[in-house]
C-alpha cells in the first residue's frame, strides 16, 4: 500500500508544489530546477511514444486474433506503420532509400507527401459533406433562440467570404455592411461567450489540479477513485 499509494502521492505533491512555486522564485536554483524538470519530462514524453505504440499494436493484434468486426482494417494499421518505420529508417541520409540526387526525395518523404497527406486531407475534407447535410437537416428556427443562432450563423458564414463584399457593394452603396456585421458578431457576442467559457474551464482546471496535488483525485493512478 505504501509503495502503491502513499509514495506516488507524496511524489506528486512534492513535485507539483515545487513546479508551482518555482514560477514565482527568480533564483538561479529555481531556474536550474525548471530546466532539469523540463528535460526529464521531454525524455519521459519520448518514451511515452513507445507506450502508445505498444498500446495501439496490442489493441489491433487483439482485433485481428479475435476477428472482431472490421478486423481487416487493423491489418492496414500494421502495413502502414511498418512501411513508414522501415522507409524512415532506410531513408536516413546514408540509407539505401535516401535521396540520390539533389532534387530527388527519399522514399519516406515520397510516402508522406503522396500517401499520408492526400489520405489525411481526404478524410478531413469529408467533414464538409457531413456538415452541409447536418446543417440542412437540423439548423431550424424552431424558437427565438434557435432563430437568433441561425441568423448569426448565416451572417458570419456569408460575411467571411469575398462574395459578401460584392453583394454589400451592390446593396449598400459600396459600404461593407455584411462583412462588418459579421466582424461585429465575432468581436462582441462571440468574444464574450468564449471568454466566459474559457474562464469556466480555467477555474475547473485549477480546482482539478488542486485535487490531484492534494491527493483527493486519484483516478490517474488507476483503479478509479478508491
Amino acid at each position, binding site marked *: 500500500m505504501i509503495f502503491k499509494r502513499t509514495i506516488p502521492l507524496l511524489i506528486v505533491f512534492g513535485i507539483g508544489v515545487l513546479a508551482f512555486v518555482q514560477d514565482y522564485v527568480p533564483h538561479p536554483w529555481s531556474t536550474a530546477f525548471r530546466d532539469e524538470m523540463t528535460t526529464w519530462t521531454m525524455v519521459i514524453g519520448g518514451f511515452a511514444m513507445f507506450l502508445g505504440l505498444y498500446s495501439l499494436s496490442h489493441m489491433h493484434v487483439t482485433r485481428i486474433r479475435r476477428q472482431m468486426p472490421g478486423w481487416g482494417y487493423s491489418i492496414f494499421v500494421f502495413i502502414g506503420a511498418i512501411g513508414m518505420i522501415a522507409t524512415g529508417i532506410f531513408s536516413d541520409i546514408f540509407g539505401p532509400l535516401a535521396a540520390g540526387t539533389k532534387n530527388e526525395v527519399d522514399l519516406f518523404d515520397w510516402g508522406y507527401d503522396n500517401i499520408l497527406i492526400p*489520405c489525411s486531407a481526404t478524410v478531413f475534407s469529408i467533414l464538409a459533406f457531413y456538415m*452541409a447535410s447536418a*446543417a440542412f437537416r437540423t439548423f431550424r428556427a424552431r424558437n427565438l433562440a434557435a432563430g437568433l443562432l441561425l441568423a448569426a450563423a448565416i451572417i458570419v458564414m456569408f460575411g*467571411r*467570404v469575398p462574395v459578401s463584399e460584392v453583394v454589400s457593394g451592390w446593396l449598400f452603396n459600396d459600404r461593407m455592411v455584411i462583412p462588418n456585421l459579421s466582424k461585429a458578431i*465575432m*468581436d462582441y457576442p462571440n468574444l464574450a461567450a468564449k471568454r466566459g467559457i474559457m474562464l469556466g474551464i480555467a477555474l475547473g482546471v485549477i480546482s482539478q489540479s488542486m485535487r490531484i496535488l492534494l491527493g483527493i483525485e486519484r483516478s490517474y493512478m488507476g483503479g478509479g477513485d478508491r
Partner: protein
Amino acid sequence: MSTNQSRPRYYELTRRIIYVSIALAVIIPYFYNPKQDFSPSIEVRKVYDKVESLSPGDHLLISIDYDPSSEAELYPMSLALLRHCFKKGVIPIVMTPWPTSVGIAKKGCDEAVADANSMFGKKVVSGKDYVFLGFRPGITNLMLKMGDNLKGAFDKDYYGQPTQGMKALAGVSSLKNVKLLVDLAAMGTVEWWIAYGADKADIPMATGTTAVMTPDLYPFYQSNQLIGFLGGLRGAADYEKLLKIPGRGERGMLAQSVTHVLIILLILGANIHMFASQLLRKKEALS
C-alpha cells in the same frame, strides 16, 4: 403511413443531392480561378505589418502544430509566411512539437526555399538563412525549455547539424531573442504557446488556425496576447493578397464563396419548407 415510408427515401435522396452539390461547388470554381477583389482583414494585416517591420537578420519562430489533415487550410499560411521571411531577409526558425507534422513542416520549408530562388532571386541556405529544427517531444515542457534555453531544447537541427554555433541562430539563446512567435495550429496549442511561450518570454505572438478554431482566438486578440491572427483559408488568402504573391489561399476563395452560399441556401430552403409545412398543418387542422 405513406408519409413515414417515404421520409427516409426523401432524406436519402436529399443527402445525395447535397453531397453532389457540395462536390461540384468546390471542384468547378477551384478550376475556374478568376481574379477576385477582397479586403484583407485587420487581424491579418497586423500580422503582415509586424513581419514587414522586422529587419533582415531578425528571428521569427514558426511552430507547425498541424498534421496533414489540416493541410488545405494551414499549409498556404506556412508558405506565405516563409516566403515573406525570405523576401525580407528575416530568419525563420521552424519547429514542431508533433511527430506527424515533421513532414509537412519540411515540405513547406523546401517549397519556400525553392520559391525564394525563383521569385526573389535569393539563394536561401539551411543553417544560415533559416533553420528547420524538426520535432522534439514534451509540448508544454518543450515550450518552457525553449523559453530558458532554445539550443538546449534542440541541440541539433532536423538535418543533424549542431545548433550551437549555427549562423542562423546567432544571437538566439532563448525565446526572448525571437522577435515574433507564430503558431500555425489545428490543435489546442495556441493557449499553451501564449501561456508557456510568448507571455513568459515577453515576445509578441500571432497565430494561424483552422476556421473552426478561429472564434476561440478573439479573447486573446482583445487582450493583446495575440497581435493578430490568420483564420482559416480566408486568413491565408488575405496574407497572400497583402504579400502580392497569389497562392492556394486566394485560389480557394471562389470555391469557399460558392460553398458558403450553397449551404446558406440549403439552410434557408429547409427552414422555408418547415414553416410552409407548419402552416399547411395548421390550415388542415382548422378546416
